[in-house]
């Protein structure tokens, strides 16, 4: 689906020519090792680069120029995957074909070139006032997690289950790490990113392949580099005692998080089987958790399970009346037990595979979806397609689910609520 062109050692361009969209979407990803201190730097760096540059010194000037390009979208963000940190520069502009003018895509590329290679420097380093402001912005982003109770509970679960590991390191780092950033340390991070990060560039739209390759070679002078991604190795968790943690905040509903560990990670051959198992457990509106905890017992509006495959964690999230915590945990446990006993119908299995298939095919109906899914799965197969992966799901049996479920071990019960602990 994507055509891969190696621009330089460590710098790959992935092009997908399609008439499906009225826009051209592009994403440049810089990948490095995940580390809290560097994550903080890289989060602030993406904000600083997005704010202004040598050509557009003020944010408003840059935004005006983008508006003139028919509201071309341009933003950077910081994220993580497994044990890597990713800075993404994302762009989307209208395909000239739909406008009365042309040259929008070209101008947008020039803009990106400026954003990457000509930052808003003063006296050889980042403008101090911009740095100060963007440090504050990232700190506010980190703090705001507290105000969203579901997100906060989710974060606390990983903190408690996997402290000091990539699973609990935020892509934005910590407040203290952001606080400590200086112009000099940020400059180091920037130079390091340009020189040493692995770079993956994606383009989706009605573009001509050869032209794009030529343009990139001409406009983006990426040097060769050596960054080899090593999949993280899962620690083997021998769960003996289940940890129970209750925390109190002034709130009405209880946010329950039940964390399980599994040795089946993204890189494990059984990964597709575990995806299906999670789907039967609580991934969809027909799943066991939804049907039994929500519909039969009417005790929750939200209840579902998710699979953080890179970290070998399956978890259940539910919004419940805090007084019913014990009952909810028991019911959730019973649903997993049902899977362990192979108490799964063919219908449940077929529904799950059908909906997993629908969701991957549907994601491919957006340019960003194509980029994000391919970016993950290309690890397995450079010719990755939705159909190939769906075939793996289709091969999963009830016996497989039974086996997968037996490898899901309860590790943590966490409740955030207004209830006295």
């Amino acid at each position, binding site marked *: 689906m994507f055509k891969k062109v190696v621009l330089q050692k460590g710098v790959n361009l992935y092009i997908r020519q399609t008439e499906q969209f009225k826009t051209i979407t592009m994403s440049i990803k810089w990948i490095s090792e995940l580390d809290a201190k560097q994550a903080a730097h890289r989060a602030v760096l993406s904000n600083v680069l997005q704010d202004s540059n040598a050509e557009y010194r003020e944010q*408003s000037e840059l935004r005006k120029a983008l508006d003139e390009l*028919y*509201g071309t979208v341009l933003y950077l963000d910081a994220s993580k995957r497994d044990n890597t940190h990713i800075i993404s520069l994302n762009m989307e*502009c209208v395909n000239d074909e739909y406008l009365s003018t042309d040259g929008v895509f070209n101008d947008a590329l020039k803009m990106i070139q400026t954003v990457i290679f000509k930052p808003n420097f003063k006296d050889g380093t980042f403008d101090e006032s911009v740095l100060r402001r963007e440090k504050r912005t990232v700190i506010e982003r980190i703090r705001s997690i507290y105000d969203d109770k579901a997100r906060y509970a989710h974060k606390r679960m990983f903190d408690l289950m996997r402290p000091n590991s990539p699973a609990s390191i935020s892509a934005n780092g910590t407040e203290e790490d952001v606080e400590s950033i200086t112009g000099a340390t940020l400059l180091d991070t920037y130079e390091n990113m340009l020189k040493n990060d692995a770079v993956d560039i994606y383009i989706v739209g009605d573009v001509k392949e050869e032209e794009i390759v030529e343009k990139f070679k001409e406009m983006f002078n990426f040097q060769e580099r050596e960054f080899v991604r090593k999949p993280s190795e899962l620690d083997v968790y021998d769960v003996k005692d289940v940890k129970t943690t209750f925390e109190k905040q002034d709130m009405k*509903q209880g946010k329950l998080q039940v964390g399980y560990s599994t040795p089946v990670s993204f890189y494990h051959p059984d990964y597709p089987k575990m995806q299906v198992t999670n789907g039967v457990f609580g991934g969809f*509106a027909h799943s066991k958790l939804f049907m039994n905890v929500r519909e039969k017992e*009417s005790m929750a*509006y939200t209840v579902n399970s998710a699979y953080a495959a890179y970290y070998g964690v399956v978890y259940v999230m539910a919004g419940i009346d805090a007084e019913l915590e014990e009952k909810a945990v028991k019911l959730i446990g019973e649903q997993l037990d049902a899977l362990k006993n192979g108490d799964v119908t063919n219908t449940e299995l077929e529904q799950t595979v*059908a909906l997993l298939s629908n969701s991957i095919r549907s994601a491919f*109906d957006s340019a960003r979806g194509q980029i994000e899914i391919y970016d993950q799965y290309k690890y397995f197969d450079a010719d990755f397609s939705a159909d190939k992966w769906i075939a793996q799901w289709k091969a999963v049996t009830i016996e497989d689910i039974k086996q997968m479920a037996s490898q899901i071990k309860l590790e943590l019960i966490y409740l955030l609520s207004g209830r006295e602990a």
Partner: protein
Amino acid sequence: MEKITFDNLQETLFHEKLDNGLSVYILPKRGFSKTYVTFTTKYGSIDRTFIPRGKKDFVTVPDGIAHFLEHKMFDKKEGDVFQKFGVLGASANAFTSFTRTSYLFSTTENLYENTKVLLDFVQEPYFTKEKVDKEKGIIAQEITMYDDNPDWRNYFGTIESLYKEHPVRIDIAGTIDTIEEITAEHLYECYETFYHPSNMAVFVIGAVDPDEMMNFIKEDQKGKEFSEPEEITREFPEEPLEAATKKTVLEMDVQRPKFNFGMKCNRTDLKGEDMLRQDLAVNLVLDILFGRTSEFYTNAYKNNLIDETFHYDFTLEKGFGFATVESDTENPTDLEAAIQKTIISEVENWTITEADLERARKRRIGQFMRSLNSIEFISNQFTAYNFNDMNLFDVVPTLEKMTLDDLKDAFSTISSVESHTVMTIVPKAKEN
């Protein structure tokens, strides 16, 4: 079947109004593997006082009933409708807004079987006392979840502060007390009144053959019996021009204060082209005054009055409309002053130029083109516009025709100081 082409957008829309009054729209999208189908009724949370079908007198039903009805539509005698969609590989959902209730699915296989499931479950009501009572627990948890969500409280608090009488001020889900009053009889009464095909629209978009799909829906509707279409009589209270409350402060367990500046729109009797022009014009004014290129934004961001959560929006429906400007902020007082200053100085001394309009217009045209990649956006927006006699595909021509006078006129509908309100959510005072 009516066929409407939009050459500049390279889109073709198919439309037919069926004998029973149902409007069907089909928009094929090349290159897509997914099809998205919505079945929507012009019935939302604000429709609380009306004359039930076949009756003569007005009734007022408990708050939150449109949303409750939406939940209950999925629960049938033979079980949960999600199961049926699941077997057929479709992902289904529904939502209730102030003015609409929409049922939908998206699928990459079994399109007609899924369409059949959708049409059937929405057109075959089944409510019992037992099932209604059971749902109360689930919805109570939904209400409690929103109660703990400061952004939601901020949004609804603002609307509640703006509107004194109009039911838009009531939370879509109602309250734990009002849903307690809901009975199966209520649900049947609302269903019979508002779920008549003549009050509904089907929109199909994505990988679809328009002729086949139109025939399929027609055949299906022919096989079902409906009463004659009847005009629905709803009643809305008189709403004063001024805001209900000038200032609301709510304490919650948050780290940073959340601020929202609400502006009630005083022209809400438009429809069709006029409504579209006003809707787009107010949005352009907001872009120019508060967008990222504005003087307001530049200063407020520099002075740490706003952060990444900064956001502005305009909602316009028949009977109500409001603009909001919101952000998390350490300094609600200064942010309020900065917003007020921006509005008042624009009222006193209009500064928006042709160049501002031109740039904002380009930006909105580009944004519209981008959103045409999303079949969910097209479907939801098309239906919302359609219920107000507007056409989504008129957006670009209307933007192209927009003048500074239109902007000035639109601005005057939201700029009166007496129709503004300020909502703030602040951290709880620490107990010592």
